[in-house]
């Protein structure tokens, strides 16, 4: 069904970005504009986008058809015809629902967090642009439009991570995020091209590709499936392209929240779900995705247990949770994966915002042990943080439990016991490191725990809304075993996810197992850290503390070796060979010219002699050729 409203979901945040950019230039060049104006533009536009999405969602809920909106023909070259077209089916509306909603809350939070910053207006311009890019990505009707949004979030993440650009480290982190993402983007674009040719160039619209998926040979589908997943690995920070995510913590905290909860990192999972018709036909690649997810989940969780920076712990936990999502989508349980994306958006945004509030109260101290040593009372942040920790640890009845349990059950049902085992162990580690974080920062005994800090309402309001979301979001997909309706599963039925079907006894047993594992992690952390002496902070040492030296290995393997190669090209190939040849030719001509210039000595007698000699030679030649015969 064509609708004129779909595009406004994207255009309104984009408009907000443009207005804020204009305001900011005016602010810089002419007259100061109060922060309030930027904040109003920045926060109202996502909310309007949310309202548009909500109305479309309600229409779909009423049993309406999928929405679509064709704006214009963008490219038409030979067989390749790309329309600027947006698709509002159940998957994309579901996704943009929480992207706009959680995004809106993070915008509100940013008003309080960024207060007094010189780049306040710029920040909101970037923020709105980030949201608009993500919405382009979500609502795209073909992979090329999706790629616009894909690159858009990449650029915005770069701009925002290096927002405090006066610090060299932040700029490096932004560069790292951007460059690592480029590797993935190359995979993505190659995957799209492969898919286009594999499908006999029928077109690039998702619906057309889905209808013609049988045309392609299995090998080409596997290749394009793999290449597309390389793109997802980059965006969603999976092994081996995850290295940018921890460094991305260099940006202000609202950015971390936005990247981790609503935009950017979930793009990879969304993209795999978008291409569900492709991945359903190549199970080997699906299995590969699931294993990548499992390894990433475990790897990140192990690293997180040793980190001391509050934001880095949360970053690794995001990577770990993304691993779960990839396990689900890789095994064909698309709705479970997206449900975890959905619940994760709530509790992860909340955790980051809570962490940001605490960091702000403690004058930008991020080391958890030092934060504890100078603790201040932050009751709302503490309470909401606790909700987030329980949710991510997977303790019922909070949202994380339902979504994570569905994924683990899915792995179990598909006989992937290794993945299931890794998932269970990761769940244990997750509970452990999250409660470690919570106990150290908020509970461990500290001498300075008196002064109460007033926290800005713009910071506490989103936290409380999200806390409600984190508590109740799980019930949206209440499992049928408890008499629930599994709303998300039935809503996303068009993805043809594999259904969970196991005996009730097994399902109860699995749930009990995951609860036991989570509680075990909790209790271990409680035992160790509830009365931890924060004056003796842990350090990041050993193999795990140094993140398995992956950054160093990458540095040697890629950065240093590429530098060596470029140096070789600069010093030898360019300087000696190419310049040697070109400059040698030029210098040769110059030196010959100098030698010849000697005869042009302005001496008339010599000139007469040259003339004479020349004429004599010509005469001699003429004599030999003409007369001498």
């Amino acid at each position, binding site marked *: 069904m064509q609708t004129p409203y779909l595009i406004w979901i994207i255009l309104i945040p984009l408009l907000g970005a443009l207005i804020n950019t204009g305001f900011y230039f005016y602010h810089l060049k002419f007259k100061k504009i109060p922060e309030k104006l930027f904040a109003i533009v920045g926060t109202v536009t996502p909310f309007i986008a949310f309202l548009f999405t909500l109305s479309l969602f309600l229409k779909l809920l009423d049993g309406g058809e999928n929405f679509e909106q064709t704006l214009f023909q963008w490219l038409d070259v030979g067989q390749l015809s790309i329309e600027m077209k947006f698709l509002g089916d159940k998957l994309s509306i579901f996704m943009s629902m929480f992207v706009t909603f959680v995004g809106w809350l993070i915008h509100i939070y940013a008003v309080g967090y960024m207060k007094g910053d010189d780049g306040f207006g710029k920040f909101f311009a970037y923020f709105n642009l980030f949201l608009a890019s993500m919405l382009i990505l979500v609502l795209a009707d073909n992979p090329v439009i999706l790629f616009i949004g894909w690159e858009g979030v990449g650029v915005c993440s770069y701009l925002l991570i290096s927002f405090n650009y006066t610090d060299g480290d932040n700029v490096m982190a932004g560069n790292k995020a951007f460059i690592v993402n480029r590797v993935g983007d190359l995979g993505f674009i190659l995957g799209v091209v492969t898919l286009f040719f594999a499908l006999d160039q029928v077109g690039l619209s998702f619906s057309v590709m889905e209808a013609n998926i049988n045309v392609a040979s299995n090998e080409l589908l596997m290749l394009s499936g793999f290449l597309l997943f390389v793109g997802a690995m980059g965006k969603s920070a999976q092994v081996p392209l995850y290295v940018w995510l921890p460094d991305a913590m260099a940006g202000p905290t609202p950015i971390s929240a936005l990247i981790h909860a609503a935009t950017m990192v979930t793009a990879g999972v969304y993209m795999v779900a978008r291409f569900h018709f492709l991945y359903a036909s190549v199970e080997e690649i699906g299995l590969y995705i699931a294993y990548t997810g499992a390894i990433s989940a475990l790897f990140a969780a192990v690293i997180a247990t040793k980190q001391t920076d509050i934001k880095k712990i949360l970053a690794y936990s995001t990577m770990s949770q993304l691993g779960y999502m990839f396990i689900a989508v890789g095994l064909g349980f698309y709705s479970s994966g997206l449900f975890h994306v959905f619940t994760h958006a709530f509790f992860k945004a909340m955790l980051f915002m809570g962490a940001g509030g605490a960091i702000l109260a403690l004058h930008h101290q991020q080391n958890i042990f030092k934060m504890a040593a100078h603790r201040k009372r932050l009751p709302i942040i503490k309470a909401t943080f606790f909700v987030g920790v329980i949710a991510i640890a997977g303790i019922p009845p909070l949202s994380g439990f339902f979504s994570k349990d569905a994924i683990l059950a899915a792995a179990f049902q598909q006989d992937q016991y290794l993945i299931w085992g890794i998932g269970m162990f990761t769940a244990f580690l997750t509970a452990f490191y999250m409660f470690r974080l919570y106990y150290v920062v908020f509970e461990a005994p500290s001498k300075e725990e008196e002064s109460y800090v007033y926290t800005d309402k713009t910071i506490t309001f989103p936290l409380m809304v999200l806390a409600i979301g984190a508590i109740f979001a799980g019930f949206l997909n209440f499992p049928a075993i408890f008499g629930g309706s599994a709303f998300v599963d039935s809503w996303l039925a068009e993805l043809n996810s594999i259904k969970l079907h196991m005996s009730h006894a097994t399902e109860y047993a699995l749930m009990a197992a995951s609860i036991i594992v989570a509680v075990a992690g909790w209790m271990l952390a409680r035992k160790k850290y509830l009365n931890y002496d924060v004056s003796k902070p842990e350090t990041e040492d050993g193999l795990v503390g140094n993140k398995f030296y992956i950054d160093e290995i990458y540095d040697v393997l890629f950065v240093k070796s590429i530098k060596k190669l470029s140096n070789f090209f600069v010093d030898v190939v360019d300087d000696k060979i190419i310049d040697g040849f070109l400059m040698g030719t030029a210098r040769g001509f110059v030196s010959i010219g100098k030698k010849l*210039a000697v005869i*042009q*000595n*302005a*001496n*008339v*007698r010599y000139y*007469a002699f040259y003339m*004479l000699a020349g004429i004599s030679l010509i005469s001699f030649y003429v004599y030999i050729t003409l007369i001498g015969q």
Partner: protein
Amino acid sequence: MASLTGYAIVSMILFSLGTIGVVSRRNIFVIYMSIELMLNGINLFLVTFARYHFNMDGQILSVMVIAIAAAEAAIFLSVIILLFRTKKSLDTDVFTELKEEVE
């Protein structure tokens, strides 16, 4: 009547003397006179062969050469005067304004 070879040798000697004069002498006047010598050597050649072949073309051409040489003399002499006025010298080696400076 002397032989053709004699006339030819005399005209060649005249031309060669003129050539050597142009190339080797430094005084502009001498160079100018050497040029005249070359022209007259050629004239002698032309006249000799015209006579030998009973064909007047050569003589006509030699008269042409004499006429042009007269015109040339007018220009050449005035150029020499101008050159002398600028540098107060008649030495050709002084006039090296167009020389390419080689470092």
